[in-house]
């Protein structure tokens, strides 16, 4: 099969498998991942080499687009509107999963520190799509639902920051394990990555705003926006900065700098869905079934302790911010699903730590499938207990 035929096959089968799975009320992401596993090299081998080899390219582009969209959370209007509970809950549930998974991997599973930290950081991500699907289906309404939506929307932003910090520390630990000046280097690396990404995103956002006045039509707007996202991703890779952070900062600064900046984000909607589909199918295809049996305990520990971290962190955040009782008790259960952001950051970890990358990535795909299957049920349980459906 040639590459183009392969892409055509993935797009069409992906579309229809998503339609099929929606009938039994599961998110489309689950269908894409399962399809990927099914037609990937581990099972039916229906994805041509050329497409598999471009996984890295597609995932970088998709991650850039996702992170750019996440940047919208930082608009002045949005930040003003979301209340204290959402900020506290989202930060603490992300950090709760991060800390608990890291500690579990370090002390119970006896994994090296840098691997534990990467798993912890990936655990902080959630997937809003599955949660939103349940909210829509049952027409949930009320304060609990509003808080939950606010939290799932913004917490991936914290995840990107947590991951950038963790990755910088892990890399430093991995490469300078023996160095005496170790702590300073770790600190410096993390700082440089965040600050450099911020500067890159900011500079590009300013240039983009300045050139915007030459844009005349929708088509030009789409090309213009995509062009800048690619420039940003490419420069971030070239300068060894964080693709995720610089894309997020580009989005965040743009949404505040430009009056009609929401149009940039709208324009992308025309092209992002097929890219997302390809990304998820290829993620599924990268699952190494032969590695799976060895990952049983790791996967179970990750599955369980991530949820405990989220539920515990959300509860603590709700307590600090004086949120109502139902939010304090049940909100964490709405945060179980994980998908795009977790897979994306796992891919980055895979390419940065080739020796253990396979193990990290396969664990995250396997747990993603499980979380996407049980996540909607957990969200439904939370909404029911909270009394909003």
């Amino acid at each position: 099969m040639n590459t183009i035929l392969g892409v055509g096959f993935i797009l069409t089968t992906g579309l229809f498998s998503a339609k099929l799975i929606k009938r039994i009320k599961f998110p489309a992401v689950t269908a894409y991942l399962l399809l990927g596993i099914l037609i990937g090299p581990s099972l039916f081998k229906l994805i041509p080499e050329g497409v598999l080899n471009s996984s890295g390219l597609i995932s970088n582009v998709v991650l850039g687009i996702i992170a750019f969209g996440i940047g919208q959370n930082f608009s002045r209007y949005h930040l003003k509107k979301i209340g204290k509970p959402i900020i506290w809950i989202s930060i603490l549930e992300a950090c709760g999963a991060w800390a608990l998974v890291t500690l579990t991997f370090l002390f119970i599973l006896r994994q090296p520190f840098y691997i534990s930290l990467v798993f912890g950081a990936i655990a902080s991500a959630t997937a809003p799509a599955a949660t939103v699907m349940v909210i829509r289906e049952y027409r949930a309404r009320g304060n609990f639902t509003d808080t939950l939506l606010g939290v799932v929307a913004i917490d991936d932003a914290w995840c990107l920051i947590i991951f950038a910090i963790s990755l910088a520390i892990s890399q430093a630990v991995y490469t300078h394990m023996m160095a005496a000046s170790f702590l300073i280097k770790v600190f410096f690396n993390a700082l440089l990555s965040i600050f450099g990404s911020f500067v890159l995103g900011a500079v590009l956002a300013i240039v983009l705003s300045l050139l915007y006045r030459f844009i005349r039509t929708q088509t030009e707007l789409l090309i213009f926006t995509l062009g800048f996202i690619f420039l940003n991703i490419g420069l971030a890779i070239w300068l060894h900065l964080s693709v995720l952070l610089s894309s997020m900062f580009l989005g965040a600064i743009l949404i505040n700098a430009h009056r009609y900046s929401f149009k940039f984000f709208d324009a992308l909607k025309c092209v992002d869905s097929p890219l997302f589909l390809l990304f998820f199918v290829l993620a599924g295809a990268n699952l190494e079934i032969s590695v799976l049996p060895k990952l049983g305990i790791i996967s179970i520990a990750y599955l369980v302790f991530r949820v405990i971290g989220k539920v515990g962190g959300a509860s603590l955040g709700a307590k600090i911010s004086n949120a109502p009782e139902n939010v304090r008790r049940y909100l964490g259960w709405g945060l179980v699903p994980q998908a795009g952001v977790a897979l994306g950051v796992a891919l980055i970890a895979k390419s940065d730590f080739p020796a253990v990358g396979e193990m990290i990535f396969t664990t995250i795909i396997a747990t993603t499938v499980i979380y996407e299957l049980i996540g909607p049920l957990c969200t439904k349980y939370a909404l029911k207990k909270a009394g909003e459906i």
Partner: protein
Amino acid sequence: MQIKDIMSGQVISVTRSSTLRQLLKLFDKFHIFPLVPVIENDKRLIGIVSFRDLIDALSSYHPDVLKLVPFLDEEEIDIFKMDITDDIGNLVVVEDIMEREFISILEDTSLEEAYKLMRLHLKEEVPVTDKAGRLVGMVGVFDIIQAVFRQKGIIE
């Protein structure tokens, strides 16, 4: 020539607390639903309602925050099979369905600028405001085209 010279100054507008029923009643006799500006008591423009938002009112929960969610499956809406009761007409208010992010133009914008903006954003009509953000009128692409025809002497 500026937008304020050709816009229509008399605009049907609603407030955020207008109900869906009141909104629909306003355009009972129209065969289309125009772009409706939403204003505060001091005439400040805070949102717009388009016919797409009416469909959203039929569908379900639709807060702004959903715009921030990546890979959200599009909701399939069959407006003929929606399970809704007639009290939705009083329960849903304009604030629930209005768009808070929208294109508007200042009254002293030139016709060329306005035309460019509407073409770029594929808008047939947009609300016009003064510098303080108060609604002063509406202008459509047709108003601009008409003005050009008038300048060329094709119509009086």
